[in-house]
């Protein structure tokens, strides 16, 4: 595999291997000179058709820490505004000589489509409601830092599941690592066929939180909601938001994740993000390291590409030749 399109393309062993090497990339950020030459001479294009701050910056920092060059295609100032098609844009930037494209698009399947048009490695940075695999990887890494092995842990994902590529990716990653996942949402924000997901469904947040080892909040994606799915945001915040009382009931040892950007006062009460157990900043920091690992595996670790080559235990002949 030479692309990262969906968490479902990765086996549990692949995910564990990415999480195993991620601390090595995190260490680079702590050096006096936090840049290593691993991907010198490679170019990563960032093609974002949707608004993004942290994901785009995170990939950009990740590429730069590995000495790759980055091309930022800002859709609002590019020829896309003149009506250029996705394919033409992709072929244009590829002709400039790029090794990887990080793409975000409002439509599901765009990254997969791009793989048919360009030779570069394609990394999905979020496509519609579908997938956001690096978010799932960084959530796994952040949770394992707090909880250790996720096997048998109960992770509660609460919020706008239906429109959430983060939820779809997180469910795939958490369950592969052996965790039990409980989804909590009003019926209108559950996906179309939730019974086909490997999860437990719950509509009462307080009941779900009683046995939570970790909580992942989702952003209320009002820009994707084209109908009245929630009668009132205040009512939603009361029933499905993480209030200060709910956070207190959880206790200080249950990590709380949010992929950002947060709607304070909706899915999370205004003062809850300041609690120590809310790991939003850790998620951002870990996101850079995980994305470095993904870029390195796709562009640097050799012909075998991603996932990591079949590994054997052996001994070294100093430099393998």
């Amino acid at each position, binding site marked *: 595999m030479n692309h990262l399109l969906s968490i479902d393309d990765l086996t549990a062993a692949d995910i564990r291997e990415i999480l195993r*090497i991620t*601390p*090595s*990339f*995190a*260490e*680079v950020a702590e*050096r*006096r*000179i*936090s*840049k*290593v*030459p*691993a*991907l010198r001479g490679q170019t990563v294009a960032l093609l974002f058709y949707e608004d993004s701050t942290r994901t785009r910056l995170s990939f950009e920092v990740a590429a730069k820490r*590995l000495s790759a060059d980055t091309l930022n295609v800002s859709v609002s100032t590019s020829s896309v505004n003149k009506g250029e098609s996705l394919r033409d844009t992709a072929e244009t930037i590829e002709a400039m000589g790029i090794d990887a494209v990080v793409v975000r698009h409002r439509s599901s399947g765009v990254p997969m489509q791009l793989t048919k048009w360009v030779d570069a490695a394609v990394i999905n940075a979020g496509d519609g409601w579908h997938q956001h695999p690096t978010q799932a990887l960084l959530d796994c890494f952040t949770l394992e830092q707090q909880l250790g092995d996720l096997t048998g842990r109960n992770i509660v994902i609460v919020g706008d599941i239906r429109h959430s590529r983060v939820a779809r990716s997180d469910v795939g990653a958490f369950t592969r690592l052996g965790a039990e996942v409980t989804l909590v949402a009003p019926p209108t924000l559950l996906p179309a066929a939730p019974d086909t997901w490997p999860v437990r469904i719950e509509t009462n947040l307080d009941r779900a939180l009683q046995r939570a080892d970790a909580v992942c909040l989702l952003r209320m994606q009002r820009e994707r909601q084209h109908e009245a799915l929630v009668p009132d945001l205040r009512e939603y915040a009361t029933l499905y938001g993480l209030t200060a009382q709910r956070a207190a009931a959880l206790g200080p040892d249950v990590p709380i994740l949010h992929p950002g950007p947060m709607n304070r006062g909706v899915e999370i009460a205004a003062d809850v993000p300041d609690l120590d157990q809310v790991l939003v900043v850790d998620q951002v920091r870990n996101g850079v390291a995980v994305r470095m690992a993904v870029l*390195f595996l796709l*562009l*640097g*670790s*050799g*012909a*075998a590409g991603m996932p*990591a*080559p*079949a*590994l*054997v*235990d*052996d*001994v*070294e*002949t*100093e*430099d*393998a*030749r």
Partner: protein
Amino acid sequence: MGERERRGAPPYGGTFVSRAVVMDADQIRRAIKRMAHEILESNRGLDDVVIIGLQTGGIEPALHLVEALETIEGSRPPLGSVDVAFHRDDIGLRPVLPEAPTDINVDLHGCTVILVDDVLFTGRTVRAALDALNDFGRPRSVQLAVMVDRGHRELPIRADFVGKNLPTARSEAVRVTMSAVEIGSMQK
């Protein structure tokens, strides 16, 4: 050379098959003790000396060297480790994966760094390690200690402290543990 160093599947990796034991545990222990004395002699003690093992094969020799230095001198120099994966010159030519995070907690500016590895062969790992050290400051000097120098250098790099000079054929492989140094070959 880590017993559990991960390598790509053939043609890059394989299983080590031993042909002969060239050093036993006692000889290794004495060699490390001698190298410790040589390090103290040439640096006139341990002032500003930092010992850094190369992941993964240099970790154990570095630890034993630090212990030998402590036994002789009564003080323990700082010990770190460096993973050179991100600095290798063969990234993209063969599977390269980081082993364990680099761990250097001291500012290397003005220090004397003793790099420790198990086997010195082409010198490319050491070149990568020298490159990696620059991210942590500018050492006053960098010296190299290896358990085995097996020849076949491809870069102008030499060891300052050597456990054993071991002439080998390029096709052979050398395995270093703290209980034996063996010469053999990699079998697919």
